[in-house]
């Protein structure tokens, strides 16, 4: 049950204990879900699906937010 999984988080590999749902990852990272958007393996994950999204070994996640820009 506690097999570690390795994810790519914003381009950096990170090993974490599995199993892991996306909502748990966001909470562990200390992020406010209202202020970020997540892409998993190039597909958008709607906020409403964070709770049901089980992360798999090798998943590539992009976690973005709005910053200043012209």
């Amino acid at each position, binding site marked *: 049950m506690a097999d570690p999984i390795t994810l790519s988080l914003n381009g950096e590999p990170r090993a974490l204990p599995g199993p892991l749902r996306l909502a748990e990852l966001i909470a562990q990272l200390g992020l406010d879900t209202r202020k970020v958007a997540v892409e998993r393996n190039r597909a958008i994950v709607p*906020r409403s699906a964070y709770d049901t999204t089980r992360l798999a070994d090798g998943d590539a996640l992009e976690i973005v937010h*709005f910053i*200043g820009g012209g």
Partner: protein
Amino acid sequence: MDAVEPRVVGDDDPWTVAGRTFRSRLIVGTGKYASLEQTAAAIEASGAEIVTVAVRRVNLADPGAPMLQDFVDPKRITYLPNTAGCHTADDAVRTLRLAREAGGWNLVKLEVLGPPPHLYPDMAATLAAAEALIRDGFEVMVYCSDDPIYARRLEDLGCVAIMPLGAPIGSGLGLQNPAMIHLLLQQTSLPLLVDAGVGTASDAAIAMELGCTAVLLNSAIAHATDPILMARAMQHAVQAGRLAWRAGRMPRRLGADPSSPLTGLIR
């Protein structure tokens, strides 16, 4: 935070893009400021109701760092996500899909740029990206060259606003080809905004006097010595230029025409 003037709202003269109505005809960028506090103060002083924002990776090493939304409330100020840094249609579509999820709406600014030092709009890639975005349900305000052929194609594709550059991004050179902006205005029924190149208040006024719907700028405020003062100047310049356009300027003439009567002079 610096004290700011109350929002000056001119005559009731709103404009509409993609079914959304705004009173301010100044859109400002949120980049290049010294701090998020200064960003917020400049936006307030500018009276802008729409701000452009970029989409970037969260710094996972510092997740508690203040975010733009903490200073600029997206419920009060409309966020217009851009595609700055995207050099292909695929990158632009991917970026804006993330922006739509983060922000919850589909009005966006598309820009696909060539390389430095000109960062000129790559119009072939811009057209391809616009087509893909519109197919995906986005409402696309598009940064473009001041080329009437491409502007027409973007309009035909279904873009919701045409936004030609006045001069290279961040150059502050002012409108380099007002005649072409005039020609673009003649042919389009969409909102037309000058986006990029404005350096100071008179440049923004000139764009509005030509009949542009609105002006989009960032560096002119952010790189001013006093950004808050310049934000106020831009608000007034856009309003003055708009009023002058509505008023209809006098005809130019090559000779003098005295303002005081030539009759009734003392002898």
